[in-house]
């Protein structure tokens, strides 16, 4: 038995070393390869699918428009995907594989702040530009990396304007209850909000966390009910929000304003909660209502919306999808401006960018995180999301429920 096992091990090692040495055949036309590790299985699967739809839409649209022009050459876009199974170390492994074996020219970051931060260590080491569609926490960008760019503004741009708006519009709102999912991004937002609200004189009457994967919130909501808040701020992901909103009604929780991050603008939420969605407020990094216009391949928010719906069975493009596609759009602008696909030059053009796109005006701050966007605040009014902030693009006024 030992001998056959030995042979097996030797053969296995040989295969592995062989696989390691394989290089894809060089194609005749020029191809721009972008690596995109995605969580296609595991708890983050829904988000992975959304990101993929955004990336695919961009690649298709860009190629249909003739590819990416870089100096005298034109490149066809090819995205290399792997499934990192919602597991950060796999994401890191994927990135390294894409860089050393597939020889990608750029990387689209994995989903979420944690995985993005882990992978950024790799891309920085190798000097490969990485654009993150879905990382907002400032902690992701605090390592002084030069090759990392993020499409979301920091969490404070999401929480602070809303607090100011609420306090201005309805001074009777004083008591705030916070309910956060025990997960990186929702916790970060909740912490931001709590600190800012306190600094502005609001009282945090309840501050709770719920474990990832919870489906029952009756205990937490009973506590909230006992605390009698004017404003309930819940953070988590769409399915958490649907459950919380429904169970709020089941538990008799009443309040003047409900804010939920993220989820209320998705069709799942609106269908899932029906009438209960009315007046729920959320912040979003983009919505078709913003009506942005730009120099990218999509040209305008409305065109992006139209193309997405056409390709995805009239599905709704929420901001995470738009952000994903925007990564591609921004990359193309940088490459064309640089006149080459050489990584360091593309990186420089990304750092210098100051352009309008369908996603908004793009300018990256010194840490690589975008600094030029103002996340709109949206409220579900009459069953559809309406923009209530910032004043430049608002469609409606913020509404409150009676005390």
């Amino acid at each position, binding site marked *: 038995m030992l001998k056959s096992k*030995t042979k097996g091990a030797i053969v296995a090692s040989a295969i592995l070393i062989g696989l390691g040495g394989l290089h894809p055949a060089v194609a005749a036309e020029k191809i721009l390869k972008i690596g995109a590790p995605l969580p296609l299985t595991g708890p983050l699967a829904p988000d992975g699918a959304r990101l993929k739809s955004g990336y695919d839409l961009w690649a298709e649209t860009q190629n249909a428009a003739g590819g990416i022009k870089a100096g005298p050459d034109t490149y066809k876009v090819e995205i290399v995907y792997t499934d990192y199974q919602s597991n950060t170390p796999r994401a890191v492994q994927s990135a390294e594989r894409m860089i050393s*074996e597939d020889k990608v020219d750029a990387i689209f970051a994995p989903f979420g702040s944690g995985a993005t931060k882990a992978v950024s260590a790799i891309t920085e080491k190798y000097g490969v530009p990485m654009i993150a569609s879905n990382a907002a926490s400032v902690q992701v960008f605090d390592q002084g990396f030069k090759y990392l760019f993020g499409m979301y503004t920091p969490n404070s741009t999401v929480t602070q304007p809303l607090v100011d708006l609420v306090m201005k519009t309805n001074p009777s709102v004083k008591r705030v209850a916070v309910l956060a999912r025990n997960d990186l991004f929702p916790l970060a937002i909740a912490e931001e909000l709590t600190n800012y609200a306190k600094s502005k004189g609001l009282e945090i009457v309840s501050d709770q966390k719920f474990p990832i994967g919870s489906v029952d919130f009756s205990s937490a909501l009973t506590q909230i009910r006992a605390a009698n808040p004017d404003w309930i701020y819940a953070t988590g992901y769409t399915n958490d929000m649907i459950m919380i909103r429904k169970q709020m009604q089941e538990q008799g929780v009443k309040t003047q304003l409900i804010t939920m991050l993220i989820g209320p603008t998705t069709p799942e939420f609106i269908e899932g909660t029906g009438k209960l969605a009315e007046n729920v407020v959320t912040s979003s990094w983009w919505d078709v209502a913003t009506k942005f216009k730009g120099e990218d391949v999509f040209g305008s928010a409305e065109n992006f919306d139209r193309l997405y719906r056409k390709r995805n069975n009239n599905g709704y493009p929420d901001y995470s999808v738009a952000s994903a596609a925007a990564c591609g759009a921004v990359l193309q602008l940088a490459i064309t401006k640089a006149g080459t696909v050489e990584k360091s030059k593309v990186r420089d053009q990304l750092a210098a960018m100051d352009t309008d796109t369908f996603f908004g005006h793009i300018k990256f701050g010194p840490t690589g995180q975008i600094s030029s966007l103002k996340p709109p605040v949206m409220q579900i009014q009459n069953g559809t999301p309406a923009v209530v902030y910032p004043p430049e693009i608002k469609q409606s006024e913020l509404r409150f429920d009676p005390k």
Partner: protein
Amino acid sequence: MTRLQLSLVLVATAILLAMPLVGGNYVLRLATIMLMYATLAMAWNFIGGFAGYPSFGLAAFFGLGAYAGGVVQSTGVSIALAWLAAVAVGTLFALVLGFILLRLRGSAFAIATLVVTEVLREVTNGWTGLTGGGMGLNLPFFGWSPSALSAFFFYAMLALTAVTFVTTFIVAHNRLGFGLTCIRQNEDAANIVGIDTTRYKIYAFTLSGGFAAATGGIYASWIGYIEPGDVYDVLFSIKPIVMVLLGGMGTVFGPIFGAVAFLVLDEVVWRSFLELNTGILGLLIVILILFLPAGLASFDVRSLWRRAVTP
């Protein structure tokens, strides 16, 4: 050790030592992963293979080592000290947990160890001040080149694997190994003939926990960012078991061969199937379990008898 085995070990060692010089970074990464799992498999082998106690808690020690090492490293201390801390914490916890849990047998022991992982994960998640909780723990990045870093961690893992291997060899050929094998075959009889089963079991469990924790410590430094869900992952408990079952329970070389064979399959499946890789891995595990080599059959008879005798 037979001459064949010795020459194999020497050849393998030579290949491994030379790898950073010939392999690219990605191959080195794969090799490091392989060494890591080989170590985990050998760690499990002490309690599961030799002693026959079905521990499903390897991930608990792995995660504990990762966090202990990680937390210490983020205070700025040298990486070697961080790893020492990982081993210390893991060994201590194994000692204490062993005292408590090793009085259970069979299913009860399996469940308890499985659950310990979950508890540790939630505690780590909640202890935000120390561990960063759900926001994860970032480990400082000491600006070496990618190649240098790959080589460094490869050699670190190789060293650990070597130490674990030597320990396994020593245990297999001395009283402890013999005692553990007796416990596996029939614990009550072992007690009667005068083997201090409690002490031996605790030794095995502690060895298992300590090596798993060491692996976790190196792993955390290597990846640079850990989250409770990543390291307290039940797959770190299950995969090593499958590897040891594949390679041969309670043997010296078994875990290593099992690890290599399983990981090659795992990597090939992962590369080849985008959306189905988890399912196909499951299929592989099912096939392996149903059609395992003859090594498993003899284990069965004994375990059947043990189950019949145990209340």
